[in-house]
């Protein structure tokens, strides 16, 4: 973290900024060491610089999100959810539980609904990701987005992107043939506000409409 230094700083301010900077450097180093695997420590001690560099090595990733190709360099531990929200500024997909239990992070990979919080981004190499931001065609909303508005399918809206992504896939999969089936096949998306009845209505409406999604 760099501190901006004015050229007019007195030497005392410079000294404070320097010790702050040193403190940050030291504590970052200590933190980095704390989360470093023991094998890496050994490699560093043995002066095996190449092996040491390999552990923090970022991996290349070529991925298409909402029709736009990206060439990135990321740590393997980056989830697709964090990649989208933090590096691609696509914050429509939400982090609800981060453990695969709520469905708020649901996106499509090659058209299939999956949980982005449990997907390591490096495994999405060469695949096509669709998020809630990728549904509308300019100002023209996706049929299911329209249906959610028409049927009042959301209150706080936090689960809604996941519900819509999941709902589209549910219809495409052929699992929206009755209200009971919709409830069962949408059970991976939790709504704390309890908008479930209207979510079911929205999905049933679009399914009845018969449009190809």
């Amino acid at each position, binding site marked *: 973290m760099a501190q901006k230094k004015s050229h007019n700083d007195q030497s005392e301010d410079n000294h404070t900024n320097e010790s702050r900077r040193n403190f940050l450097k030291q504590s970052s180093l200590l933190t980095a060491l704390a989360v470093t695997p023991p094998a890496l420590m050994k490699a560093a001690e043995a002066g095996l610089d190449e092996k040491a560099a390999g552990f923090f090595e970022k991996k290349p990733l070529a991925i298409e999100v909402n029709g736009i190709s990206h060439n990135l360099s990321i740590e393997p531990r980056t989830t697709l959810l964090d990649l989208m929200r933090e590096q691609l500024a696509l914050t429509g997909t939400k982090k609800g539980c981060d453990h695969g239990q709520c469905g708020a992070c649901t996106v499509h990979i090659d058209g299939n609904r999956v949980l982005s919080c449990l997907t390591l981004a490096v495994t999405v190499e060469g695949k096509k990701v669709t998020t809630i931001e990728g549904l509308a065609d300019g100002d023209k909303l996706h049929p299911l987005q329209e249906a959610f508005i028409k049927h009042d399918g959301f209150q706080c809206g936090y689960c809604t992107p996941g519900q819509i992504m999941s709902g589209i896939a549910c219809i495409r*999969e052929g699992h929206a043939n009755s209200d009971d089936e919709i409830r069962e096949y949408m059970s*991976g998306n939790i709504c704390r506000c309890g908008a479930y009845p209207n979510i079911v209505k929205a999905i049933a409406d679009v399914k009845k409409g018969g449009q190809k999604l």
Partner: protein
Amino acid sequence: MINFDYVRVSTTKGAVDAIVKDATAQWLAGGTNLVDLMKKGVTTPQKLVDINNLPLKDIKKEGNKLVMGALALNSAVADNELVRKEQPLLSLALQAGASAQLRNMATVGGNMMQRTRCPYFYNTDMPCNKREPGTGCGALKGYNRMHAIFGASDKCIAVHPSDMCIALVALDATVLVSGPKSDRRIPFQNFHRLPGDLPQKDNTLERGELIVAVEIPDNKLNKNVHYLKIRDRTSYAFALVSVAAAADLEGNTIKDVRLAMGGVAHKPWRLMEAENFLKGKGASEANFRQAAVLAMKDAKGFGQNNFKLKLAPNTIVEALKTATGKS
């Protein structure tokens, strides 16, 4: 999550070699359990070997067996026409598990390898002999509502959480494994272990052995089937008790029957004694009740899960009634 190295392999041999030469490495398939465990710090591999490119995704007939590649997705198997026609019990069990999103990510092999969801196993602050041998079993005298009533030891009372495995053990499946020394075939019944004194070992695989496929032999058990999963919610929750039931009926006589239970043991629990009692008998509630009593021999509760001693036999009876059209 700790940082780790990541490589991709494209052959079974490559996958096996990568694990054998690095003791800190683990295979990554769907990741729905592994990534979760890594986020919680329960498991901390220093390298992940991504096996998703291995050509192990097919579902097909080979002679008189239905063969599923270890990387076939749970959703693909559940929706597969061959599976629905010839082994519908498997499709029903899969549909009862997890959520649609998870089924689109999880693989056949991964479903078998998944770890228990015991809260003491999952919490690195808690004693757990499975996660850290020698630290004790927190569930034994703790919160054990979801835990085992069969086959437990004082080292571990955890259950295997899978639904798919209950159907596979009922259908006499075989697991095909490829290892550093050789390939081998493991009867499904022998794949998972009881905890005994080594709760840290969930199954009988040696390090470096990779599941490549699961086979189900042809049978006449596709007409009268049911998978009954009893849980705290209508959907998307692990089983308190689940029963896979399949019968081959001639009129009202049970010619062949398979029964297995989930949510009750460290491994999928096949009910051989109950099956042997029912063979040749009429499909009636009275007979189902007697079979259930036999199945519950040796059952033992640990306090908060004593209700399973009543719930389990009732679930067996209801599953059989539905499977045979008597409900």
